């Protein structure tokens, strides 16, 4: 085993140590724990990069149990193990990079602004990073669930950071509850997988995807609880998907995410780009060998993804606060990743996960920079004209926005294009249902272009619309440095996998594709294995693959430019009008998020709390009432009988005589004296 794999656990333990240090000693530490966090995440990043480098150079993967919690002689073991393959190695780099930059940025956003509770904040960030990294390297579903939940805990703690106000604790509660609701299904799924397969391992021929494959092929049999094999596996897949939809904020569990904007902005960057929300999609990719066996579940994933992409994009169009726009764009973009996974585009999904992590972290940190400058004003209508005052922020934010909007040649264009291309090809290849998902995805491209450029125009262009916007607060190196790193990456990350270029020129430039296909066959977690499992066929229009690619790329680029151009046209000039108000009742509907929050709040407060109150009344009245009634019967009977004991001697004497007489009569009758 290579030395680097002996050190892999340190990728988790470094940020875990910074959590413990900041929690207990943060008050006395330099920058209240920030320095420890930066060093720890830098160390984790370094180790992750070395791991990735080693994997690239040697091709050696790693899958080993690291710690056994329950060593059962009978039944399933519960253990933590480390699985480093192409997928997890790349994800480790993404997560630790974003976590590192977020820590640096926090110096500017939290320390320099004199926020309270900094040790608690850095402890939370450390634990958040550690949990996510452990989740990424998990080699089995049980371990994945454990750290998936811890990620949820950390989001609760960080979203509710400013707990002395009213809104953040409420948002934190909502985030945890909604995702918990999803995790309930996930946990049922984990237990189901453990019981069905006797293992929860992801990789190798002993892993549950491999066992499922052989069970479906009829080579082995497992307990399917009375359902058909595929039916039961589909149930399991959908149960686990519950957790995915919750964490990745997919419809109908997306409602927690916009509220989560109550947390500090660097936390939003971490949650959206690399940790919590990414965890859901990553989980599907991690166990893709299982999902690839289940065409029905894949279809559902694709549809939910496509629908969420469109649904969230419509809501982003009308939002007035910069972080709200970004929140809905996150939901929408994760919809694309789900769409790709469901449509059989495993590589495309991970590609989009990567580029999105970069440009979304960039956009949130950029928004954070704007918020610092605006003295914590988030309404875009109070901004305007910031581009001349904040050069670095503007340029990097613009790069991120163009990537989000899917404008050529920024990174988002390449990955989104590939997502849609894969969907279209598989739709043409005999899965016509995918056309529906594709149509939703491609429509959302137009809206994405629109809301992204609208956001840029309102924030940075035109005339300043408030006094703070005229004289914004300046930001330091700790803000500009992360923005610059991410800004460069947002421009160039598309070079990871520019498939259209390869198709047109024949140059071997689909690096990510080759990388994910390089996973050794023995692990059964590589893209090559997944493509052999896939039941999707491929089709083409316009004269073959290149034609299809050009049609799709043209369509997606054209729509993105159209949306962006429309926004540019509408919102340019010194003082743009509030154009979305012309949407009338549609605007109201969108501002209220299709009343999704209302019905979920009703489910929690209107229904469950009332049910609980009714249960309480029933409990007090009927159940406890019966108990008290039984005791009062015996007490009142006692009270009646007690009246015989009146304390008057003559009464007692009379009772004694009467009793004696009665006894005599009884004996007389029984004894036959008469």
């Amino acid at each position, binding site marked *: 085993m290579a030395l680097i794999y002996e050190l892999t656990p340190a990728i988790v333990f470094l940020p875990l140590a910074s959590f413990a240090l900041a929690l207990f000693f943060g008050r006395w530490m330099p920058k209240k724990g920030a320095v420890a966090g930066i060093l720890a995440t830098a160390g984790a990043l370094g180790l992750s990069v070395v791991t990735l480098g080693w994997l690239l150079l040697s091709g050696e993967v790693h899958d080993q149990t690291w710690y056994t919690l329950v060593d059962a002689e009978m039944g399933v073991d*519960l253990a933590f193990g480390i699985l480093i393959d192409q997928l997890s190695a790349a994800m480790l780099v993404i997560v630790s990079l974003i976590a590192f930059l977020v820590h640096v940025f926090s110096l500017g956003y939290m320390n320099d602004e004199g926020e309270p509770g900094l040790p608690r904040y850095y402890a939370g960030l450390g634990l958040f990073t550690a949990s996510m990294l452990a989740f990424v390297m998990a080699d089995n579903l049980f371990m994945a669930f454990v750290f998936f939940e811890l990620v949820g805990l950390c989001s609760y703690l960080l979203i509710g950071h400013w707990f002395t106000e009213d809104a953040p604790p409420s948002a934190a509660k909502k985030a945890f509850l909604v995702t918990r609701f999803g995790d309930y299904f996930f946990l049922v799924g984990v237990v189901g997988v453990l019981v069905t397969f006797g293992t929860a391992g992801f990789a190798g021929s002993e892993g549950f995807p491999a066992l499922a494959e052989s069970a479906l092929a009829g080579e082995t049999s497992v307990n399917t*609880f009375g359902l058909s094999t595929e039916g039961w596996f589909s149930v399991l897949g959908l149960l686990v998907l519950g957790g995915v939809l919750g964490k990745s904020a997919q419809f109908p569990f997306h409602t927690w995410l916009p509220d989560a904007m109550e947390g500090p902005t660097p936390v939003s960057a971490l949650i959206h780009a690399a940790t919590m929300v990414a965890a859901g999609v990553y989980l599907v990719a991690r166990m893709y060998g299982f999902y690839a066996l289940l065409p029905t579940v894949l279809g559902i994933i694709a549809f939910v993804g496509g629908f969420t992409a469109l649904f969230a994009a419509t809501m982003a169009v009308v939002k007035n606060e910069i972080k709200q726009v970004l929140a809905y764009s996150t939901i929408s973009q994760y919809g694309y990743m789900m769409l790709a996974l469901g449509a059989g585009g495993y590589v495309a999904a991970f590609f989009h996960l990567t580029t999105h992590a970069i440009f979304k972290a960039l956009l949130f940190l950029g928004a954070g920079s704007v918020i610092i400058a605006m003295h914590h004003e988030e309404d875009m209508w109070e901004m305007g004209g910031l581009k001349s005052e904040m050069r670095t922020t503007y340029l990097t934010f613009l790069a991120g926005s163009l990537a989000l909007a899917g404008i050529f040649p920024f990174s988002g264009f390449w990955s989104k294009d590939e997502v849609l291309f894969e969907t279209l090809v598989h739709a043409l290849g005999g899965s016509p249902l995918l056309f529906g998902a594709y149509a939703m995805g491609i429509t959302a491209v137009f809206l994405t272009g629109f809301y992204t450029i609208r956001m840029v125009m309102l924030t940075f262009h035109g005339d300043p619309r408030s006094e703070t916007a005229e004289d914004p607060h300046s930001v330091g190196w700790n803000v500009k440095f992360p923005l610059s790193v991410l800004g460069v990456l947002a421009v160039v990350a598309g070079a990871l996998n520019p498939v259209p270029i390869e198709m047109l020129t024949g140059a071997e430039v689909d690096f990510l594709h080759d990388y994910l296909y390089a996973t050794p066959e023995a692990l059964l977690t590589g893209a090559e294995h997944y493509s052999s499992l896939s039941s999707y066929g491929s089709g083409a229009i316009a004269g073959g693959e290149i034609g299809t690619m050009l049609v799709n790329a043209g369509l997606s680029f054209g729509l993105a430019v159209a949306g962006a151009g429309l926004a540019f046209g509408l919102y340019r000039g010194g003082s743009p009008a509030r154009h979305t108000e012309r949407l009338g009742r549609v605007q109201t509907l969108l501002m209220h998020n299709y009343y999704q929050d209302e019905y979920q709040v009703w489910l929690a407060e209107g229904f469950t709390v009332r049910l609980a109150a009714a249960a309480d009344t029933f409990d007090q009245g009927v159940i406890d009432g019966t108990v008290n009634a039984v005791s009062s019967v015996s007490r009142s009977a006692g009270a009646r009988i007690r009246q015989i004991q009146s304390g008057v001697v003559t009464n007692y004497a009379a009772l004694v005589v009467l009793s004696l007489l009665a006894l005599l009569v009884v004996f007389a009758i029984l004894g036959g004296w008469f």
Partner: protein
Amino acid sequence: MLIEALVVSCLLGAAIVFFTPDRYAPKLAFGLSVPPLVLSLYAYVAFDGSGNALLGGEIAYETFAEWLQLGPYAVNYHVGLDGISLPLVVLSTVLTTLSILSAWTPIDDRQSEFYGLVLLLEGSLIGVFAALDFLLWFVFWEAVLIPMYLLIGVWGGPRRKYAAIKFFVYTNIASLVMFVGFFALIFGLGDAVSSTGMPAIAEALRAGQLGYLGTPTVGVPPDTLAIAAFLAMFVGFAVKVPVVPFHTWLPDAHVEAPTPASVLLAGVLLKMGTYALLRFNFTMLPEQAATLAVPIAAIAVISIIYGALLALAQQDLKRVVAYSSVSSMGYVILGLVAYTVYGVGGATFQMVAHGLISGLLFMTVGVFYNATHTRMIGDMSGLASKMPATATVFVAGAFGYMGLPLMAGFMAELFVFIGAFESTVLPAAPVFTAIAMFGIVIVAGYLLWAMQRSLFGPFELETDYELGRAPVHDIAPIVTLVVLIVALGVAPDLIFEMIRDATLDVVEFGFGGGS
């Protein structure tokens, strides 16, 4: 001799504390609770038993002496520990010592009597878990009631008399029902047993030696007898656990009881019920348990969901925790009825885990109460800004209760879920399990909501007290509990290994199921 030393050190400690002036009693009682704690930890470290104490396993620290002859039955002094009882003994000693610490602030009158009773309670509890003869066990079982009755009735809140009498009468009547049921079994076994020893009775019952109660002409046939006895014992123990619908004494007792008594009541006394269910019903009468699996599982699921809903409706923090115990105990019942190693073992693990976690929450609510003199959620908000350490522990405890991974409660629930899901004894096991698991959503709902209202938001308090940081002797026990809960969550095999070893024989009863 270890068990004798344990019990005697508790009783001796109690006697000494009773005759100590009030002002020395708290510290002395704490000191005197250390020897039993150390002894029990030694028992854990040096444990060399294996198997189940009732089913022919190697019993650790066994003592056997003839006591008296009751008609044809020899009643013996027989004690010993196995992998099921040892963790519960350690739980008792740990929680007693910690609850004595937690009593220093709130208990300010008749201290010598209070602490004496706590130590007396500890001795009786250890006896319950160590006794292997039915009559001996029953003596300890009943002896537990007296100190707890007094702790609630003397040091309790405004309605303490009502609560204490309700607790005493309800559980005592239940004991009577159980006692009749068990003796019917002994009589039904006839010549097959010659003592009231629990191992002998268990082996005889599992070997199918139950005969007619009375004579074959005018008697109760074995099948009817077994079912009737099972039901009588089940009801008797169910009150103690408690399961719905026998649970209403619990919130009353908890609300009125002083914090240390609540800790022991929820932490250990409830486990007497589930321990007895495991030892008697599920070890001795597996066939009847399997026959009644569906109704028992239904009761378990109702306890979980209904108990959680009741907790959601409460405004008093202590009632929230009290009702959530009903919910948590439902998991124990579900695990027991599954008859798998993960199920029964998980149920036992849950007894320990819930003991620690509910103890933690009751203590933390007590620390808040010491400062604010109110427990009503509506009376306070934003406490976290005034009492950060206590609030942190409360958040940790609440997440422990919600089953956060790497804490003991999650492992316990996961074991139970795995065990219940794979059960072959329980029909439609996955369905029952999936419904029961929804409890983890409701529990998150009510605890997060309660925290949001009481700990977070702007600071407000309806009562006129200055809030300062809690004293060290308030914080130390709750921090200790958090550490223990995390330790068991990260390394469950600290106790789960011996628990599994002791439950293996219980579930191996030709059901063909259960890995």
